C-alpha cells in the first residue's frame, strides 16, 4: 500500500478495523451475539450499518446469528457475524449449511483460550483445526489469519470478495491481542477498494439448474423474487437443487464444492515469505506470533543464523505449493503457535527429506515473545 495522507489514517483497534473493512467490502447485514473478545466488531457494526442503509441485529444466541446472516445472504445481502471460541463452536451448525448450500458469508473468530469458557480475555491460537474442521462432514472453507490491524482491514475486504465469488463461507481468524491492539490504519477510498460480487443468475428458463456450474465450479446464485422459484437445502442435492441420494450425483456435488477451492487457489492463497532464499532454517508463524517471529529472525541473523519466516495469511487451504518450494533444502523448521501443536501437524505433512521440524508452543494465555522464538531458533540451529 502506498504511503497515506494523515487524514486517511486513523488509529483503530483490530475489531473496529474488521468492522470498517466489512462495510468497505459492501457488507450490509450483521447479526451477532455478545462475546469477549469480539464484541467490539458488533458494537462498531451497530454504529456503521444504519449509516449505509444496512441492518444490524443482535440475535438471541450464536446459532441464531449464524442462521440470520445465512438467511440475509440468501436474500442477497453481504453478511457477517463475529464471535470467539464458545460462540464459534455454536456457529458450526449453520456454518456447515452455508458451506453445503453455498451461501456466501464471513465469520470472524477472535480467538481466546479454551477449551470451554477458557480464558475469555486472553489470546490464543488454538482454533486452527476448529476453523478448518469445526463443522461436520467434508466441506469447503477458507480461513484468513492477518497479523496486524491494517491487515485485518484489508483482509476482511478480501474475505468478502472470496466468499462472494466462490459462494463459500470465509473465516477471519485472529486472536484477542490483535482484536484489541490499536494501530494506524489507512482507510481506503471507496473508489480504490476492489469489490467482487457474487454472480447472479439472470434469466429463469424452464430447464434452469440452480446448482449447475461452468468450469469455475461456482453456480450462479438465484435471487428470490427474480422468478426462479428454486429450492435451497442443506441436504445433499443434485444440480436441480433438490435432495438426492444417487451415489453418482452425491459424489458429483460433494466433489464440485471441494474442488472449487482448489480451482481458485490463486485467488484464495496468500502468504508472506521473509528472508527465505538463503535461509537454512524457517520459522512458520501466523497472526500475533508472526510479529514476534519477525523480530526474532532479525536477531538470529545478527547472531549469524540464516533463518527466514513463512507466514500463511490464508491459513486454510494452507498455501502448500508456496511452502513446499520455500522449505525445499532447509535444514529445519520451527513452528511457533499459541496452542499445543496444531499447525505443526500440517507442516509435518510437507517435511522435506533431512529437514527437522520443531514446535514452539505456548498455552498459558500469554503471547509468544521474540526471545522465546530466538532461543528456539538457536536450539534448532545448535543441535546440528
Amino acid at each position, binding site marked *: 500500500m502506498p504511503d497515506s495522507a494523515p487524514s486517511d489514517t486513523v488509529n483503530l483497534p483490530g475489531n473496529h478495523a474488521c468492522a470498517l473493512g466489512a462495510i468497505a467490502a459492501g457488507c450490509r447485514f450483521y447479526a451477532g451475539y455478545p462475546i469477549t473478545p469480539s464484541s467490539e466488531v458488533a458494537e462498531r457494526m451497530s454504529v456503521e450499518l444504519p449509516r449505509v442503509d444496512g441492518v444490524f*441485529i443482535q440475535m*438471541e444466541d450464536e446459532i441464531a446469528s449464524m*442462521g440470520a446472516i445465512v438467511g440475509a*445472504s440468501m*436474500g442477497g445481502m453481504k453478511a457477517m457475524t463475529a464471535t470467539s471460541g464458545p460462540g464459534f463452536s455454536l456457529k458450526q451448525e449453520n456454518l456447515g449449511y452455508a458451506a453445503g448450500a453455498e451461501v456466501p458469508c464471513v465469520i470472524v473468530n477472535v480467538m481466546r483460550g479454551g477449551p470451554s469458557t477458557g480464558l475469555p480475555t486472553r489470546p490464543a491460537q488454538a482454533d486452527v483445526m476448529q476453523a478448518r474442521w469445526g463443522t461436520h462432514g467434508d466441506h469447503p472453507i477458507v480461513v484468513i489469519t492477518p497479523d496486524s490491524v491494517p491487515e485485518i482491514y484489508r483482509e476482511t475486504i478480501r474475505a468478502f470478495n472470496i466468499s462472494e465469488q466462490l459462494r463459500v463461507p470465509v473465516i477471519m481468524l485472529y486472536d484477542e491481542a490483535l482484536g484489541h491492539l490499536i494501530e494506524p490504519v489507512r482507510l481506503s477510498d471507496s473508489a480504490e477498494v476492489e469489490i467482487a460480487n457474487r454472480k447472479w443468475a439472470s434469466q429463469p428458463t424452464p430447464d434452469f439448474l440452480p446448482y449447475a456450474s461452468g468450469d469455475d465450479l461456482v453456480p450462479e446464485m438465484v435471487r428470490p*423474487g427474480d*422468478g426462479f*422459484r428454486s*429450492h435451497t*437445502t442443506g441436504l445433499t442435492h443434485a444440480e436441480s437443487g433438490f435432495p438426492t441420494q444417487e451415489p453418482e450425483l452425491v459424489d458429483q456435488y460433494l466433489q464440485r464444492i471441494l474442488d472449487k477451492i482448489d480451482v481458485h487457489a490463486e485467488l484464495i492463497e496468500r502468504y508472506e515469505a521473509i528472508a527465505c532464499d538463503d535461509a537454512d532454517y524457517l520459522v512458520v508463524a501466523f497472526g500475533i506470533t508472526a510479529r514476534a517471529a519477525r523480530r526474532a529472525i532479525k536477531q538470529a541473523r545478527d547472531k549469524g543464523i540464516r533463518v527466514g519466516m513463512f507466514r500463511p495469511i490464508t491459513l486454510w487451504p494452507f498455501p502448500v505449493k508456496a511452502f513446499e518450494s520455500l522449505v525445499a533444502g532447509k535444514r529445519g523448521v520451527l513452528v511457533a503457535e499459541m496452542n499445543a501443536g496444531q499447525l505443526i501437524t500440517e507442516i509435518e505433512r510437507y517435511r522435506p527429506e533431512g529437514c527437522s521440524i520443531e514446535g514452539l508452543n505456548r498455552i498459558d494465555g500469554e503471547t509468544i515473545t521474540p526471545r522465546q522464538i530466538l532461543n528456539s531458533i538457536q536450539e534448532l540451529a545448535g543441535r546440528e
Partner: protein
Amino acid sequence: MSEPQKQFNIHDYLREYMFPHFLCPGCGHGIALRALLWAIDELDIDRDRLAFVSGIGCSGRLGAYIDANTFHVTHGRPLAFATGLKLARPDLEVIVITGDGDCLAIGGNHLIHACRRNLNITCMMLNNEVYGMTGGQVSPTTSSERYTTTTPYGNHEPVFDACALAEAAGASMVGRELTLQTPGLKDVLKAGLAHDGFSFIEVMSDCTEVFGRKNELGNSAEMVLTQKASVRPDFLVDAVDQPFRPHQIKTGVLAKKDRPEYAASWRNYVETMKRERDHA
C-alpha cells in the same frame, strides 16, 4: 362488479415433478399444506415473492413441493434464517413451516424471540405430537401417558401449550386449527398471512404411522375425530364451561394485537437517525 372468484387449484402451486410425495398414508401434513396454499391463493400473493423457510422433520420437507422460493434449513433454525431473510428482503412474503420438535424443542429459543421481535413472518407449526421422521420419539407436545419409542412406559413429562407460549412471548397474532376443519384452517392461516406482524399458527396434525398405531388411536379418520372431540372451536370460546370440559383446547384466532412490525421499525430508526445526522 367484482370478477367471478377463480377456483383454487392446488396443482397451480405444486412442483408436481417432485411427486410422489414422501408423507405416510393418513398424515395430516398434506391437508395443512393444502390449507396454506388455499389461503395464499385467496390472498392472491405473487408466487415469485413467496419465500418458504422450513426446518428439519416431516414438516420441513413440505417446502420442496411448493412452487415458490423454498429454503430447507437446519433443525430448529428456520425462524433464525427467516429473521435474516425478512430483514434483508422485506418485499418477500416469508412463511415458516415447522413442527412441534423443530419449533418448540430445539428451536424454542428462536420461537420466543421471533414472537418478541414481531417481524412480518407467518409461522405454521404442524403439531403431530411426535418426532415422526426419526421413528416416533416423544416431543414437547406428546400428550400425557402416550407411548413413543422413547417413552416405552408412557409419557410423564408435562406438555407445552404452543399457542399460550407464543402469545405470552408477544406474538401479535396467534391461531390454532385442526386439519379436519380445512376451510377453517385456511381462514386462520389467511388471517395470519394478512396480519402485519408475527403470526403463529398451530395446526393440529396427526401422525397415524408412528404415533397413532403405537397408541392404538385407530386410523387417520378416527384420530382426527378424536381431535375434534378435544377442541372447543372459536365460536364457543366464550361460552360457559358447562357443558364443555374446561380442558378443551381452543381453536380459531386466539389472539390478535397491534404492535409495531420490526422490519418497518428498523427502517424508521435508520431514517430518523439519518435525518438527525443531516440536521446536525
